[in-house]
C-alpha cells in the first residue's frame, strides 16, 4: 500500500458514496429533463446541468470527508519536500487571492466578465481543500488510546 492510498474501510466507504452520488446525478438529470418537458425552467440549460453536477460532486465530497475517506493512512508526517511544495502551493493561492481581490477592487467589477470571480472561487476552493486535508491529517494522527 502506498503512502497516499486509502485503507480497505476508506475504499469501501468511498466506493459506496461514489455509487450513490452517481445514481443521484442520474436521477437529478432525469428529473431536470422531465421538468423541462413540462415547461418548468428552474434554470437556463447549461447552468442547470452545472448546478446538478455540483450537487452530485458536492454530496460525494462531503460524504467522503465525513466518512474519513479523503486522506489515506501514512500521510501524516510530511517530508521536507512535501512541506516545501505545500508551502509553495499555499503561497501561490494566497497571492492569487490577493491579486484577484485587488483586480476586482480596481476595476470596480465593471468589466462584466466572470473571470475574476471564477479565479477568486478557484483560489478559495483551493484554500478550503488544503485546510480540509490539514484538518483530516491532524484528526487521523491524534494520539489517544
Amino acid at each position, binding site marked *: 500500500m502506498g503512502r497516499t492510498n486509502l485503507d*480497505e*474501510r476508506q475504499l469501501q466507504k468511498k466506493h459506496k458514496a461514489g455509487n450513490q452520488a452517481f445514481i443521484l446525478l442520474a436521477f437529478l438529470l432525469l428529473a431536470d429533463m422531465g421538468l423541462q418537458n413540462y415547461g418548468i425552467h428552474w434554470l437556463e440549460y447549461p447552468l442547470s446541468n452545472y448546478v446538478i453536477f455540483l450537487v452530485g460532486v458536492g454530496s460525494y465530497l462531503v460524504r467522503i470527508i465525513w466518512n*474519513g475517506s479523503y486522506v489515506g*493512512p*501514512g500521510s501524516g508526517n510530511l517530508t521536507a519536500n512535501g512541506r516545501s511544495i505545500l508551502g509553495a502551493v499555499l503561497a501561490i493561492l494566497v497571492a492569487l487571492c490577493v491579486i484577484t481581490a485587488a483586480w476586482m477592487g480596481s476595476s470596480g467589477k465593471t468589466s462584466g466578465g466572470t473571470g475574476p470571480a471564477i479565479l477568486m472561487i478557484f483560489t478559495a476552493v483551493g484554500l478550503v481543500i488544503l485546510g480540509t486535508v490539514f484538518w483530516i491529517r491532524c484528526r487521523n494522527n491524534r494520539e*489517544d*488510546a
Partner: protein
Amino acid sequence: MGKNLRLKAARAAKDMSQKQLADAVGVTRQTIIAIENGDYNPTIRLCIDICLTLGKTLDQLFWEGAEHGEN
C-alpha cells in the same frame, strides 16, 4: 455486530495506542476505532495483520463463538 472488547484489551495489554496499532497494520486510526466499536467488519488480511501485531490468534481476537459460549 457488537463491540470487539478483546481487541481493545489486547491492544491495551501491549500498551499500544489506536494510532500506533493503525500505523503498524497500515490503516487509519478511524478504521481501528470502527473495528473496536463493531462498526466495521475487517477483511481476513487485516485481521491477520492485527493478530500478528498484537501476538494473538484469530480465534482469540475475532472468533465470536467463544464470546457467545458456542465452543
